[in-house]
């Protein structure tokens, strides 16, 4: 006597991206905190010092936020016009910022008034950064020049006039105090050495360059411009290594993860993409609500801060280990000790006689009804489960099982208005799903056959039936469109694929009956 075999619930393949280590890592952030700034956020920079405050440059202000506060801990407002590129020095004490009015200001992080003002550029300064020895400042301006300034004297040291368009990005080397790179709208990247008066290396990006970034080793350089992100090998005289085209609008900002193994790029297309720096494949991507202008990662990737054109600053903090467990509301009621724990960790001794207790198989509610051949009730319980946890798989499996038993008609018939509307509701939700369509189409036809006599008696059901009809018509149109596209693709493929000849001996030497030489033959009497 065999036991009752439960209804098989079909497992459908999970569509979409596969879960990898990267998705787990990059999804492990809390819901974003959003702060409204006064204008587009052009730059975000993290302080290298311990609480890792970050400076957000937007409109005419620079706000400094603490790691967990949503209110700025400090604000610099002494700008006559839009401020740009507020960056910390490597000791976290000083902050430099360019401005639309061509003056570069240097602030003490704790102070309010600018310590130094560097005047010399004639147009807006979009880039200002400290060199690695902390005594000089690099600035790049829309007057096609870039300058090195001495902080103590606030004097101009050198001026390079090599670019032929706005310079909108630049980066100083962290390892060498004399090296820096600038990127310009004239499509070039230039590398300068402060000890010589000319650029030492020029690379052509082919698009206006929006952002440059050194690798931690500084053997590689990443530049973003247009829709492209390009990686250059500096040790091979600026040879292009890879060109990545994963965004469909201009890439505005680049950033490296804390361990230097992932590269992040932000774009006006509202996406942030995460690349693996060994194979340059996109391993993850974030979506935001508006075009992104600036992006920064806290050390150790503790938070992701994104600034957008609509002035919204979005901050995502990494989940801590206890938060990972999920919502910690009231503790779940533990099973009673006496029942569940007793003997659970008892190890049998050597001479103990083990009595195996057969595990009682628990049947699902609908299976219990099916076992008793209560077909209508089984369908009811299956619908109930769909209402409860929105899993159409179970309901569809039960309908399929009923159809296999040949009793689906009995199960569907004899329902009142409420029951029927629930059933039609389920069909409306799932009948066009390609995974369930074969089963549900039969069920729908049966329902229409059974209840066609009473159509018009209930307004609720009638409205639902009309909705169902619209749904099916829309689906048919959609399928027709898809078939048309498929046909187009087929012709395209057929015309582009090379035609290959199959070596067929039958063409040259036919192996028909007549040509065969009288070889050894099986003799049959």
């Amino acid at each position, binding site marked *: *006597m*065999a*036991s*009752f*075999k*439960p*209804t*098989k619930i*079909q497992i459908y393949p999970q569509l979409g991206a*596969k*879960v*990898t280590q990267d998705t787990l890592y990059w999804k492990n952030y809390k819901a974003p905190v959003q702060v409204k700034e006064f204008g587009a956020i052009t730059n975000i920079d993290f302080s290298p010092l311990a609480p890792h405050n970050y400076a957000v440059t937007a409109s005419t202000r620079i706000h400094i936020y603490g790691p967990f506060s949503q209110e700025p801990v400090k604000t610099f407002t002494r700008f006559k016009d839009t401020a740009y590129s507020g960056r910390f020095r490597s000791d976290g004490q000083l902050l430099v910022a360019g401005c639309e009015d061509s003056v570069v200001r240097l602030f003490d992080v704790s102070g309010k008034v600018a310590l130094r003002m560097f005047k010399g550029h004639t147009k807006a300064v979009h880039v200002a950064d400290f060199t690695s020895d902390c005594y000089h400042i690099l600035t790049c301006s829309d007057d096609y020049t870039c300058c090195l300034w001495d902080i103590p004297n606030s004097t101009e040291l050198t001026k390079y006039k090599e670019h032929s368009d706005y310079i909108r990005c630049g980066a100083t080397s962290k390892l060498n105090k004399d090296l820096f790179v600038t990127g310009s709208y004239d499509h070039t990247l230039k590398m300068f050495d402060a000890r010589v008066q000319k650029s030492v290396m020029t690379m052509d990006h082919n698009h206006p360059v929006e952002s440059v970034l050194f690798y931690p080793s500084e053997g590689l350089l990443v530049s973003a411009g247009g829709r492209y992100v390009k990686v250059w090998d500096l040790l091979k005289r600026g040879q292009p290594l890879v060109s990545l085209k994963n965004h469909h609008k201009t890439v505005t900002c680049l950033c490296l993860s804390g361990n230097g193994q992932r590269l992040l790029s932000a774009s006006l297309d509202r996406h942030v993409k995460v690349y693996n720096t060994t194979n340059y494949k996109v391993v993850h991507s974030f979506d935001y609500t508006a075009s992104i202008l600036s992006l920064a990662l806290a050390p150790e990737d503790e938070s992701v801060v994104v600034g957008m054109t609509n002035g919204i600053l979005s901050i995502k903090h990494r989940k801590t280990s206890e938060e990972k467990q999920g919502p910690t509301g009231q503790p779940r009621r533990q099973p009673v000790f006496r029942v569940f724990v007793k003997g659970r960790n008892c190890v049998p001794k050597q001479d103990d006689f083990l009595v195996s207790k057969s595990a009682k198989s628990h049947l699902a509610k609908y299976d219990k009804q*099916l076992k008793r051949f209560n077909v209508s009730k089984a369908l009811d319980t299956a619908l109930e489960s769909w209402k409860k946890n929105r899993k159409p798989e179970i309901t569809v499996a039960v309908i399929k*099982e009923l159809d*296999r*038993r*040949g009793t689906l008609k009995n199960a569907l018939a004899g329902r009142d208005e409420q029951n029927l509307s629930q059933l039609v509701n389920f069909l409306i939700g799932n009948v066009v799903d390609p995974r369930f369509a*074969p089963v549900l189409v*039969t069920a729908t036809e049966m329902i229409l056959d059974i209840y066609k006599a009473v159509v018009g008696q209930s307004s609720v059901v009638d409205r639902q039936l009309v909705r169902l009809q619209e749904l099916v018509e829309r689906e048919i149109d959609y399928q027709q469109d898809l078939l048309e596209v498929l046909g187009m693709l087929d012709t395209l493929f057929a015309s582009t694929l090379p035609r290959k000849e*199959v*070596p*067929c*001996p*039958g063409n040259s*030497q036919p*192996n*028909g*009956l007549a040509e*065969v030489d009288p*070889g*050894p*033959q*099986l*003799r*049959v*009497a």
Partner: protein
Amino acid sequence: MVEHTGIRVVHRGGSKINFREPVITSDSRFLLCGSGESVKVYSTSTEECVHDLQGHTDLVTGVVLNPSNHLQAYSCSADGTVRLWDFTDGILIKTFIIRYHIFSIHVSEKHVGVLFVVVPMANEKGSELFQLVAVHLPRSGDPEVEVGELSAVLCDVSPNPGAVSFGTGGEYIAAAKGLQLEVFFFKKQKSYRFSLKSGMNKGINNSFTCISCHPKEDCIATGHADGKIRLWRNFNQKKEYTYSTLHWHHNAVNTLRFTPEGTNLLSGGIESVLVQWRYTQENQKDFLPRLGAAITHIAVSPDGSLFCTSHADNKITIILSSVKVSAIIQGLVKDDCVRTDLMIDPRSKALVLNGKPGHLQFYSLHRDKQLYNLDIVQQEYIHEQGVDQFQVVKAAFDTHGDWLATVEERRQKSSELEINLKLWSYDEQTQSFVLNTTVTAPHEDQITAMCFSPSPETTLLVTTSLDGHFKAWLLADHSDTEESASWSCDFVGGYHLLKPGCCCFSADGSLLAFGFQEVVTVWSPTSWELLTTLSQPPGAVRDLCFGRLSCSKYLLGTSTKNQLCCWNLLTCSLEWNTPMDVSLLQADPFSENMAAFCSQSGSTDLFVFKPSEPRPLFSKKALCTGKVERAIFAPRDQMLESSEEYSQWLNRSQLYFLTQHMDLMTFSTKTEEDRLLASSKQLMVDDSVAITPFYLLLGRHKQQQQEKQELLTNPLAERTPLPQGSIAIKELLDTPAHVLPSASFLCSMFVRSLLVSSSSARVEKEPAEEEMKSESEEVDSDGEADLFQPKQELWGSAAQDPVEESGAPVLTKAQERELRRVKKLDLSWLSSLLDC
């Protein structure tokens, strides 16, 4: 043409055991059932076949116990004889020749020396009318007796044995046919007929299907085709009979049976539920559901302790009276057709084919026993007529038996075809196949062929389908994620939208051939490149087979238009062809040989040949009637060493085939039969213990031990090994514990009793060997006298051992020596044991 007489075609196992009702013997130890041309005796406790009673020359149509001797049974057969057997020893006692085609047999305790058999009215096979006749068995000592005396009891009865029953210890006999119930009273020599109104116009079919009479009261229970059971009473008058109706079954009641005391009524039908009705309290019912297949017969042991039900899937279930299944005797399940091919499981060497609906069965050919069923569909089977169920239609093993692929399909009347491809991996721990991957709708239409690549490097499966494509499935390894390895589609191919019908890998797995209707395409499975096409225009390709070993350069194909072609793959040209209507081409996996079954004018011929040689190795005309669709070469567990040319092809493997009537046949050679005969003589069968390999091992060991013991205890004590020791122990164990003296006191006695016996046995050996010659005559003379002695000895020897009887003083000395040695031994451990 050579016809060989040395090779015979023989039936091999797998016959029906559910054709007629089984019989349980009065001690409930054995179960007798007709199985093909023999009667099989099974042990009810171990499910093993104990005896195979052979002697009938046609289908056995009934088995009953001899009412006057409970150790004997009658069996009747379509060959027109009734045979009387002693089933405990498996001996044929008597043969009664009746010369009619017998359909069933009935006996009653009241009618000693009379058998009731159902025979056709006119002695023709095709006759539609049957009569129940009484056969008076002549008393004669001859083993074969001609029976002349037949007296008709009832005319126009149903040939179904379930439709005739004896009532109240044989006072009357009741038979049902169509819509009529006929009761014949032996005392009055009068019969009454009762008929039901036909319910055909109301859409009800209430004809009788089975009948059972209450053993104590005047009550007849009848089963009907509409699922009703009627209980007839007061039927010894023509008019005032009454009946009550019970209804639970929704399909026809196949069988009915009262228990011997008449307290319960058992019924069964297609629902495969055994229903137990309480007599007189019919609303109380017990059910035993999900017995596996439709119940065809129910039998009850004479003491009422066991029931057994036989089922449509060639199974007998033994059920305790507490309605619990205790044993299952399962034969080879043969549906009306074998959808999957015959296969050999490379691990267990079992024959594999589809069995119960939705299952694959593994059947041991050597032991003629089903090993196990593998549930493929894993769905509740609905026992109802007219429900489309999933059926296993294709199955394939890879070369090592690590993977099994199965295809199941369900065709509904209105909607589309449902196909599932399942891949099973062999689990070493559970010793069975575990589901690995399920592919729903692998193809859009029926799958026509499926095979695994034989190459050891890749696990590759190829399926071909009527949708014009073939697909290659590969075991993909997901080592980067947590998922275990699963199968996925690797390649989809086709050829000019033709429908592929068959596929075949070459022996090393480097080539793959598909038959696309009239064209054979050869592909390379590594690059999926179409290497060449071969064609032989008239007729679509039916079967493809690569040659093996020395003939691996040949590809053989059969077509529907009577062609057997052999292509040479090196030159890509036709080597030879011959006009033959080959219904099946099968390659022997252990040699170059090929077997071709050709159907010719209603019968089948067999040719066994090598592709490289023009002459067939073996041929047999008119093998059987009808087409042979399924055949398989099964490996032998022991190689034959036949040197004769015509039987050499059977040395390494054995060819089995299924005929149109689903008989499993094979070829046997003379050497094989001789060997079988020799081995069967060796076996001495103990009663009720079946000859399993385990028994053979243990039994032989036991025999040897016995012989040894006899050698030891001979000539003095016959078969009473160590009587004094055993009696002392017995006494010790039988006495209640509170009467016994303390254990420490007993211990020394106990140890001594053991010592004496062992020393005597050991010392005995030496003189026995020394004096073997001199005593041999003595033994012979003593032998007869001693026959009556052992019992006395048994009682008398508690104090004096038999060694002393022989009066050898040497022995007592040896004993003393032994005892002294024992005294010196430190036995304190024993006392400490006893103290605590």
